[in-house]
């Protein structure tokens, strides 16, 4: 189930294994048969660590979703709540426990597993309700960094950006640092740390402090990572706002990928059985897992969408040819060989069918007029055209009441590409938005201003053109089919964050000191001493491994760009990516919006 985790340069199976071990240990503490009551939000991330079979091996017989009321009847010795430390969940648990039939025999034992950590406040809350004493085991399961793929880790902490940049709550950073300590315990001390941004600085400080305070953490593992690069999301506010144009990026933009799963409209996946001329269309969304375990997906996901079609048709030809082979298989040996390949071919066939359908769905959208208009405006902004006046398209979209998030993405993009909007322009947009979508959105606009996404131009100087030119963020001659630069992921725009990583590897940040100073937050370098025996002697031609940690979220297009750099022949560096949350412009802006009460009707 986890082969894809070991496919990369760093074998992340070890991290998953560590997570599984911890889980097993906890389950075995509660001897006897068990039922797990799940905080629904945890099932996704947990699914990446363990499947039901593991739980079953440890006598988990039933599983329920956490909700108020009486717990379902289940003849088990233990009831275990798997929950995040949130007070409203404590209320539900309290309700469950209080309604438990005291007369039943044998009595069921209660336990709580807090994910990712125990909370003093939640326990206090339970005590207030008079149920704390009912729990025999109260433990924590530190699910800090969850392995998503062979080169990808995420904390899946959705509100991380908001907390770090709006509320100055550094708890997520604390967990990030702890996650990095766990990584170092498994993969060795990372000798070099680079960073850019306030949060990056904090995390580096915490790591150094934790190392000092727990001298036991000094380990004797040969370091797998050469470098850690910590990047604040607010160093590059631009990239997530633009529409991602890689295959995976577009799937996420349009359908939303959650914990590597995507739900798709079922129509295009209707089984075409003989004799059933297409009646009974499925109504449930088609759910697919997307990761590098699927060979075809691993090949196409990071391509620009315009390059996906040709790969799919080439694959179709190869597979048809492979199936044809069976007519030529005459001897038992040949048949055997064909048969042995069949499961693989069968999987390849269904994989191809799925991705052809997904590509069709996406194409319907990318060929629409509105998608084109929207993209045109984005690209104008990013290449520095007309960023200083009210944009007609945005105005039209407001007039037609397009989704507010779309408007906010565009306005913020314009603001970022102009180092803030002229006061007159900003006021105009604000007014239009408030009049059309409701005055209460003034709170959201305020949040966006605080996060630096939407702001008035303070000085008359617009730094963006300098940054764009120095870092070569806009490339006119982009090659989508056979890319030679990371700018292919946005068909012209090279993600700033990834450019920083690229320049750090070669020729080093010293070459861009001036631009670094224009971007927010300090940039720094730290070294962690290694015992002499562990110092790496690099083989000639061996690539360095850099862990890039995006504090505040990363997009699939940025991941694609880093993978592109990993694969460059003379690149010299391979990247592993970690983040607080996988985001896209929509989920990101949404996390910054003020939660408004539902309308009263």
């Amino acid at each position, binding site marked *: 189930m986890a082969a894809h985790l070991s496919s990369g340069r760093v074998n992340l199976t070890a991290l998953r294994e560590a997570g599984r071990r911890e889980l097993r240990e906890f389950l075995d503490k509660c001897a006897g048969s068990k039922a797990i009551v799940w905080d629904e*939000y945890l099932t996704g991330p947990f699914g990446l660590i363990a499947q039901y079979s593991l739980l079953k091996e440890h006598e988990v017989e039933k599983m329920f979703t956490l909700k108020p009321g009486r717990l379902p009847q289940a003849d088990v010795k233990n009831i275990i709540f798997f929950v995040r*430390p949130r007070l409203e969940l404590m209320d539900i648990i309290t309700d469950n426990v209080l309604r438990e039939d005291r007369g039943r025999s044998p009595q069921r034992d209660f336990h709580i597993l807090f994910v990712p950590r125990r909370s003093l*406040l939640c326990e206090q809350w339970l005590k207030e309700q008079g149920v704390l*004493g*009912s729990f025999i085991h109260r433990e924590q399961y530190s699910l800090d960094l969850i392995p998503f793929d062979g080169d990808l880790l995420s904390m899946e902490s959705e509100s991380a950006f908001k907390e770090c940049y709006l509320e100055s709550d550094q708890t997520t950073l604390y967990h990030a640092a702890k996650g990095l300590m766990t990584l170092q315990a498994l993969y060795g001390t990372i000798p070099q740390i680079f960073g850019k941004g306030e949060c990056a600085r904090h995390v580096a400080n915490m790591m150094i402090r934790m190392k000092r305070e727990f001298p036991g953490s000094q380990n004797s593992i040969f370091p797998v990572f050469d470098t850690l690069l910590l990047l604040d999301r607010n160093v590059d506010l631009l990239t997530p706002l633009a529409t991602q144009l890689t295959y995976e990026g577009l799937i996420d933009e349009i359908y939303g990928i959650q914990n590597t799963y995507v739900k798709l409209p079922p129509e295009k996946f209707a089984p075409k059985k003989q004799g059933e001329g297409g009646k009974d269309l499925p109504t449930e969304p088609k759910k697919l897992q997307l990761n590098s375990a699927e060979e075809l997906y691993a090949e196409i996901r990071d391509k620009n969408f315009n390059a996906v079609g040709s790969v799919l048709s080439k694959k179709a030809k190869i597979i048809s040819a492979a199936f044809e082979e069976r007519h030529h298989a005459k001897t038992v040996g040949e048949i055997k060989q064909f048969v042995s390949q069949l499961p693989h071919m069968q999987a390849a066939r269904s994989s191809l069918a799925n991705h052809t359908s997904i590509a069709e769905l996406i194409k319907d959208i990318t060929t629409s007029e509105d998608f084109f208009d929207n993209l045109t405006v984005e690209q104008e902004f990013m290449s520095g055209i007309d960023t200083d006046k009210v944009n007609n398209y945005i105005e039209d979209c407001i007039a037609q009441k397009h989704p507010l998030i779309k408007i906010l993405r565009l306005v913020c993009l314009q603001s970022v590409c102009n180092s803030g909007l002229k006061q007159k322009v900003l006021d105009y947009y604000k007014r239009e938005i408030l009049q059309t979508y409701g005055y209460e959105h003034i709170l959201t606009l305020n949040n966006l201003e605080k996060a630096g996404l939407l702001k008035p131009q303070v000085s008359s100087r617009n730094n963006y053109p300098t940054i764009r030119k120095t870092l070569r963020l806009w490339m006119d001659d982009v090659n989508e089919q056979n890319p030679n630069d990371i700018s292919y992921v946005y068909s012209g725009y090279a993600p700033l964050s990834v450019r920083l990583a690229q320049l750090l590897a070669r020729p080093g940040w010293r070459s861009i000191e001036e631009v670094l100073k224009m971007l927010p937050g300090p940039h720094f370098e730290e070294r962690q001493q290694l015992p002499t025996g562990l110092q790496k002697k690099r083989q000639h031609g061996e690539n360095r491994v850099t862990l890039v940690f995006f504090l505040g979220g990363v997009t699939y297009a940025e991941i694609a760009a880093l993978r592109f750099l990993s694969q460059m022949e003379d690149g010299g560096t391979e990247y592993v990516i970690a983040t607080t949350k996988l985001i896209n412009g929509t989920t990101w802006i949404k996390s910054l919006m003020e939660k408004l009460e539902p309308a009263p009707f």
Partner: protein
Amino acid sequence: MSRVRADEEEYWHSSKCRAFVFDDEEDELSQLKESKRAVNSLRDIVDDDDDDDLERVSWSGEPVGTISWSIKETAFSSTSSLEGQDSSLQKGSSSYPALPKQVSSYSLSSLFKGRNKLSSFQSLSDALSDTGVKNYAPELRRPKSEYKDYSSDWSPKDTVRRMQRGKVCSLERFRSLQDKLVLLDEAVAGHDGNVITAVLIFLKRTLRREILFRELEVRQVALCHLIHFLRETGEQKLLLDLLRFLDRTEELALSQYREHLNIQDVEKRKEFLKGCIGLPFSAEDSSHIQDHYTLLERQIIIEANDRHLETAGQSEIFRKYPRKALILNKPLVTTLFYCCFYHYREAEGTFSSPANLKKTFKIPDKQYVLTALAARAKLRAWDDVDALFTTKNWLGYTKKRAPIGFYRVVEILQRNNAPVQVLQEYVRLVEDVETRLNLATKYKCHDVVIETYRDIKDRVQLTAYKSKVERGSAEEEKINNILSN
């Protein structure tokens, strides 16, 4: 794909396999067994139609699906949990971009989401002191030494470190202000919001408000955590006091304004908004807040009137087009649309007249025309549409003018199924020849197409267009006339 599959079936059932005549020199029997086994296991795959099953069912038929899927499975016997599962399946099933739900969040803010009760926090320290702990059920596996944790002689640093590891510590022994502040500074240095907040709650309970505020003012990180905590737990009064103390006027104003979202009753909400008007917002924001209040006030009046009209049944428009939702709390532009729909001809003096709204809220011309156009077009009131764009100059000549491009007018009319006669009148007004031709062709405004080709003297296109119009129709004749001239 099904065709391929059928072929396979045929192949595997065909005689070639059954004949067992192979020329291989190896042990045929064992090889055959192996190949048969392979074929059989293959059938599992080939017969399995839905690829999903591959993910879900292992060879032995055991479910090895994802956890969320398994919950559904194992909970099957219980109807109540089944319902819950059903509803969760519905979520995000729409084809529109499904936004990932909050998946998991670990930090401070997640601890307090939607929480309004505060009383329980007053005695937090109880939980942290040993008396509370003794009530716990016997914890079998806890080593004896851990009980020492509660013996209370930990330094501030150790206390924080223990709390970070989720252990229970008594804070009560930190009595002097000095001790408390050292404890707070240690907590802040640890960066763990859970611990910082626990200490803050202890300080909040044991320190005088002015002292707490004064000390927090020089401790920005702790201050942020307290503000965030107060916001999440809904301790509005203390929050406002704090912001006032800090002189953060704009933040104070917005925090107060945010409260209106929790007021369901519209009258009360209106009164509350009225109270917000004087708050120290930025100049720009303050005019928006004023507008918000005025709008809701308007909506309440309009709503009362219209409800009366509707129930009385006297007004034709309300009979013909019953209202689907209340106008209360709707955005300004929606309100304008509503008024253009139900109250278009009212004199400017009434609250519900569109002209009055336009004036009061300084709605730009463009916005006004777009909204009025959409509303009148929906009612198929083509005369009103006409009037919207007709201007008279001082000589009394009329002229058609639009603050939005006429192509937009055409789009909106078309969306409301305007007849060709109406549509072509506006297509004709589109200035750009190419756009005009495109629109006219798209919406089959033959006259406009023909006239345009005539004007630009494009015989070739005009001749070609003959195939698009009906044979023997007036349009065909028109084309012939032009071509023969």
